[in-house]
């Protein structure tokens, strides 16, 4: 993991302090009404407070201690809920703060139509303007490089300190405002107006300012509102029953019962769960353009994976040496290494690395004694001449080396040619190595599948997600890689339109599709996919088409994104279940207590053996409030998620949050009751 | 819309004619042809006079005969006002009534010990028209009837045992005795044994 420049821990002092202040500020009914469940609690708190003052005024101190404590805990319930939301927002706000710092006012070098430069404020730039950036300039706005190549420091947005290359044309032309040119000079065409740039968008996203409720969140909210309404009816209709028995129950107790029954736990934590879900993506360096996209990620049925970069490293690597008949494999390794010493390509480096496994260490050669022969498209080979030994070592395409050997009056080894053909057939690339007229053998180069990818794909299969590998390779090569990586399907010789076709086909079967892309070619497919993750290195068109942006430009991350989406939904479901399951115990605490004066026979229902009616009710209320605080870390962190079959995940969560939700409050309320009794505070 | 409304009215009227009129008459016709006795209410005749239905309980309160269960249908066994007592088990008034009923049964049938009063004979049936009593309730009344009528206990006990309606198909229901039938049998015996008493007790048959 790279160092996250702006990722902030939730529990630093500053955030805590702000969150506490915010929790009180949010008591404003105008803000509270957005959360109907907690709004009801607030109204309840106001009612009990009013009763408290009325009793004070009338000098009625009979149940004062009880009423005071209930009132306090009801207010705490509201404040705890606000605190949960504030603290999750606080982290986003702190992150936005860091981002804003990178947005200091920049002077742009505007290139006018007459070719002259003019220095203006970046905020004056408009879409379509052309600016010039040189070493140490801050790029004044989002744009596309139209001329030149430069290395750019994008750590301000990605947190990644290694510079990236930006060049005109192709898929690496997009630059982001606020990033810094480290070397060379580029001309950039600005593509966004001030305030609408990528960083601005990111700030409002992490800050939660543009946060909209997601479809599941809306549905869940409706469920919670309906439950609240239901319990309101349940509690209100207790009064006529009590009146039927000529009894009287204080409104304080009705409020206490209502607050205990309505789903306050999930009501308090719901928005915190949503915000921190987005936040977890930020932790992975992924910016989701909407919460909806994060949810959709959890629903994905099919993943389109580009072979190059996602499944394989994208570079061919040496995997074995195949020596000619009379040649020792060590000798071949020796020469192969020599031939590659000056070869700085990934292939060359992989040959040196493989040779090391044959006991050959890196060697120091007398520079005067050697002459490097660089690769050229004409000869299709490279190598080194060792002058004193008169050894001309060459490495290259099998055909080219064969020609070279023949030119030097050597003979071509038929068996080696066959071996080379075999390698091609398996989807690999053969390279021949020769010294003067002798062909020593073949180096087997292969597209290497990333370590652990097979396990990842297996775990995806376990959670019911199908993977499709897309590659431009021929079917043979594609199949070899597909088998090795264990993907479910693959499409070879893919054209840019292939992705679009596959997405549409899968979607017509009712499936949700996720993909990654970076090129302008990918833009339509990214837009069509339910989850389109654009690489930050990609073009502006791609970034705008996708609904997520991966700042690390690591396509493998699609898997993490899916898991984060699932975790978000699981956390919501689990805490809802927990919240509703809790009610059972609260009934057993409150019902016998509140009805004790009119129906003393209900005493056997007090199965927890709570010490007095008042302490029973107070214990339930305290438990109800405290559980919110206890669950905040879980809401922020998310329920543990390990890829498994849906039924296994469900069993686990049902046991913990369903059954646990039934049992936990029985224990919790009993303990609080014991504490209250011990302290004699009632 | 008007067309739709006409269609809706048509289906309403059509189904009314079929489901209410045609259907009821069809079943009536079948009853008329195949089950005339049942269709008329299973009413039995003695001396060509209708004496009641074997299905519907009759008010048997005289100590000379087998008494039925208390009835809350009208003044008791009123065939036009089927109803149970609807007393709740915790109703104090109900328990007071029960106390009277149980004590009365114990006094009338001194051979029965307290704690052994068959529960059905002191509780009302659901409709107040059920003719059945339990075997225990019938047997417990034998000594009393024997004493009052002079019929041997053995004869009466035999009568009871022979009259038991067992479980239907060997499984459904609880064995019991139809008091209508039981008392009709008792009447036959009494008619031979003590004509005078017979006329007094079974005035419905005597006339």
């Amino acid at each position: 993991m790279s160092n996250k420049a702006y990722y902030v821990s939730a529990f630093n002092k500053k955030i805590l302090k702000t969150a506490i202040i915010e929790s009180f500020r949010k008591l404003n009914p105008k803000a509270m009404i957005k959360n109907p469940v907690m709004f009801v609690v607030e109204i309840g708190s106001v009612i009990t407070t009013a009763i408290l003052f009325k009793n004070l005024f009338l000098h009625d101190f009979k149940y004062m201690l009880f009423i005071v404590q209930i009132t306090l805990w009801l207010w705490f319930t509201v404040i705890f809920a606000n605190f949960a939301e504030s603290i999750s927002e606080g982290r986003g706000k702190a992150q936005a703060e860091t981002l804003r710092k990178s947005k200091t006012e920049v002077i742009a070098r505007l290139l006018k139509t007459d070719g002259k430069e003019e220095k203006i404020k970046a905020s004056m730039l408009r879409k379509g303007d052309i600016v010039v950036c040189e070493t140490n300039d801050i790029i004044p706005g989002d744009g596309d490089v139209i001329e030149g190549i430069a290395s750019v420091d994008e750590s301000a947005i990605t947190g990644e300190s290694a510079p990236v290359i930006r060049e005109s044309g192709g898929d690496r032309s997009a630059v982001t405002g606020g990033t810094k040119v480290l070397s060379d000079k580029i001309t950039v065409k600005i593509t966004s107006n001030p305030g609408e740039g990528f960083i601005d968008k990111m700030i409002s996203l992490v800050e939660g300012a543009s946060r909209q409720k997601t479809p599941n969140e809306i549905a869940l909210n409706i469920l919670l509102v309906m439950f609240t309404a239901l319990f309101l009816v349940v509690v209100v209709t207790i009064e006529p029953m009590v009146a039927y028995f000529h009894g009287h129950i204080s409104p304080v107790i009705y409020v206490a019962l209502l607050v205990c029954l309505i789903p306050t736990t999930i009501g308090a934590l719901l928005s915190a769960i949503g915000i921190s879900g987005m936040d977890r993506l930020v932790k992975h360096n992924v910016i989701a353009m909407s919460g909806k996209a994060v949810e959709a990620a959890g629903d994905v049925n099919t993943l389109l994976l580009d072979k190059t970069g996602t499944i394989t490293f994208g570079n061919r690597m040496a995997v074995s040496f195949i020596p000619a008949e009379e040649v020792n494999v060590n000798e071949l390794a020796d020469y192969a290494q020599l031939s590659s010493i000056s070869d700085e390509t990934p292939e060359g480096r992989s040959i040196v690395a493989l040779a090391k496994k044959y006991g050959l260490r890196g060697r120091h050669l007398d520079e005067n004694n050697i002459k490097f022969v660089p690769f050229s498209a004409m000869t299709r080979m490279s190598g080194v001449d060792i002058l004193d030994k008169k050894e001309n070592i060459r490495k290259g395409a099998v055909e080219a080396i064969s020609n070279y050997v023949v030119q030097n009056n050597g003979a071509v080894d038929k068996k080696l040619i066959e071996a080379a053909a075999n390698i091609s057939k398996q989807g690999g690339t053969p390279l021949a190595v020769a010294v003067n007229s002798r062909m020593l053998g073949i180096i087997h180069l292969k597209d290497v599948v990333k370590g652990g990818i097979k396990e990842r794909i297996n775990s995806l299969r376990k959670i019911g997600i199908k993977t499709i590998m897309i590659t431009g390779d021929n079917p043979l090569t594609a199949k070899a890689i597909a088998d090795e990586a264990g993907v479910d399907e693959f499409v070879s010789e893919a054209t840019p339109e292939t992705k679009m076709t596959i997405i549409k086909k899968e979607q017509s079967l009712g499936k949700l599709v996720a993909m990654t892309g970076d090129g302008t070619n990918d833009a339509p497919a990214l837009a069509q996919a339910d989850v389109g993750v654009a690489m930050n290195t990609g073009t502006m068109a791609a970034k705008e088409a996708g609904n997520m942006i991966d700042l690390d430009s690591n396509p493998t991350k699609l898997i993490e994104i899916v898991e984060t989406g699932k975790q978000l939904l699981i956390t919501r479901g689990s805490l809802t279940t927990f919240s509703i399951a809790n009610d059972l115990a609260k009934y057993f605490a409150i019902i016998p207590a509140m009805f004790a004066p009119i129906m003393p026979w209900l005493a056997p229902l007090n199965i927890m053996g709570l010490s007095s009616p008042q302490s029973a009710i107070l214990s339930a209320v305290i438990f109800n409030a405290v559980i919110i605080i206890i669950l905040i870390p879980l809401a922020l962190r998310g329920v543990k998620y390990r890829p498994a079959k849906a039924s296994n995940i469900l069993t686990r969560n049902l046991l913990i949050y369903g059954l646990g939700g039934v049992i936990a409050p029985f224990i919790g309320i009993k303990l609080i009751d014991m504490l209250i009794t011990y302290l004699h505070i009632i | 819309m008007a067309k739709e409304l006409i269609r809706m009215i048509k289906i309403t009227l059509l189904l009314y004619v079929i489901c209410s009129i045609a259907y009821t008459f069809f079943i009536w016709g079948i009853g008329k042809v195949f089950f005339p006795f049942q269709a008329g209410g299973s009413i039995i005749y003695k001396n060509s006079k209708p004496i009641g239905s074997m299905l519907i309980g009759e008010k048997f309160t005289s100590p000379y005969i087998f008494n039925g269960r208390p009835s809350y249908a009208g003044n008791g066994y009123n065939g036009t006002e089927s109803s149970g007592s609807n007393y709740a088990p915790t109703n104090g008034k109900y328990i007071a009534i029960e106390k009277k009923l149980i004590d009365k049964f114990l006094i009338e049938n001194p051979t029965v010990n307290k704690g052994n009063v068959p529960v059905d004979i002191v509780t009302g049936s659901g409709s107040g028209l059920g003719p059945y009593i339990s075997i225990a309730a019938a047997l417990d009344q034998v000594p009393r009837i024997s004493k009052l009528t002079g019929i041997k206990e053995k004869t009466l006990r035999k009568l009871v045992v022979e009259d038991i309606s067992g479980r239907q198909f060997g499984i459904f229901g609880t064995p019991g005795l139809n008091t209508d039938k039981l008392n009709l049998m008792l009447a036959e015996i009494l008619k031979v044994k003590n004509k005078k008493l017979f006329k007094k007790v079974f005035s419905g048959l005597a006339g």
Partner: protein
Amino acid sequence: MTFTGILQIIAVLLIMVLAAVPLSRYLAHIFKYEPTFLDKLINPFENLTFRFLNVKKEEEMTWTTYLKIGLVINFLMLAVVFLILRFQNYLPFNQMHYPGIPWALDFNTAISFITNTNWQNYGGEEVMSNFSQMALVFLQFTSAATGLVFAIAFIRGIVRHEAKYVGNIYTDYIKAIYRIFIPLAVIFAIIMLSQGAPQTFTMQKKVVNITGTKQTLSVGPVASMVSIENLGTNGGGFYDANAAQPYENPNPFTNALTIFMMGTIPIALFFMYGIMIDDKKHAWTLFWVASTLLVVCIAVIYSQEAHGNPFLAHLGANIKASKYNPGGNMEGKQEHIGIAQTSLFASATTAFTTGNVDSAHDSFMPLSGMILLAEMMLNLIFGGKGVGLLNMLTMVIIGVFIAGLMVGRTPEFLGKKIGAKEVTLATLAMFAHAFIILVPFGIALSTAGGLAGIFNPGPHGLSEVLYAFTSSVANNGSAFAGLDGNTVFYNVILGFTIFFGRYVPIICQVAIAGALIKKKRIPESAGTFPEHGFLFYSVVLGTIILIGALTFFPALALGPIAEHFAMVKGHLFY
């Protein structure tokens, strides 16, 4: 509890399930418009009917049209019967010259029968002419068909995807009546007739008993009513005491047969649902959910009733069952039918929301009463015609929504995503059910009119009122009959609760079908929530119990639960 008692219960239940399996296939054929063995007999009538109605059978409707027509037809039928009852004194088959039914009672009764409730604030033999009883029979057919066709529309909403039409209501309606209810009603009416149920147009017969007592017997077209009353899970009997009146239920065999009539179609509907959606495992799981609840309910009632009333034991009655003594709580029960079958009957009539009673529920033990209430509060233990299935599926949607989130996907119900709309409608149906029970219940307890009807004192009186509203909203119709409901107050308020209790959930549910039918179907994978098997069973059962308990616990605590504990402590109420 006795061995033979348990055996009887198991036998009846088993026979019902065994009969439901083939019946479900027949039902599925009908509503998939596939050929059945009765085609030759019924097709001519059916085609004639369609021609008469000017209906093209295949012309399908959107859910709104389907619903609208269904509701208007209901209203028209309601009007017809309302008028017949109101003016029965001008109509035939009224030898006793009963006057027209007063408007409030008429309002209550007509609504009660069109909604499949059959709550009766009257004793049939005391106020209704035979012609009026026959008019009620008409509604017993059509109200059963109404519930059924809406359930069919709902199922089509699940089966079809990216579609618009849910079927043709006229076709479904006529098929339901011609192919299911009429044939079955005829068969069972004949069986009941053979067992002793009267079928005559005479209203009363006068007899002189052997003891010289004059007795008047109420008779009438009973057999024809008894069969559809139970087959249609209506429950409105010919007599005040319903199936406790021997003419409606002459012997233990007819008692078992009545239970069979009530339960077999609702159970078959669960299986039919499985066939229609092509997911039998799912339907069977729901069957086990309902069965579990049913068996628990029967067990509690049977054990409570067999245990009997401790107060009577204290007074000297023998409440222990033995060879000659039935024991148990015999108040309001028929001796020959016995405790076991009565317990089964009571549980069945509330589970299948029939409302027909063969005993006085008011006199049941407190906890038995609680179970009866609970069965109606849930209203999904197989339930009435179609409605039980709809309620079960509504609860499944709520359960699947909450638990479905826990597998990390947007919850799906049989491949259809559950969004805000479905959740709103499903929870609204659930909420409406509770609201329409509890609020009028509260009103009744706070008004003189409501309190006036209460018969039994203490917590049981509370239960009586609660039972009335629960029974009406659940469209059950059974009663804690001590409550005097034939007052303007109860006739009107119960009329309204019955009306809203029926139509609000149905409208919500058909609207859910309308929302589901438009959706794409997402194929099942290892990542989707499993909608069959033990896990699903637990989720659905848990949801039902939890929501049910949370909603009604306070009312049950102050009613039957308080009564039970008071009884245990030996406390009587005056």
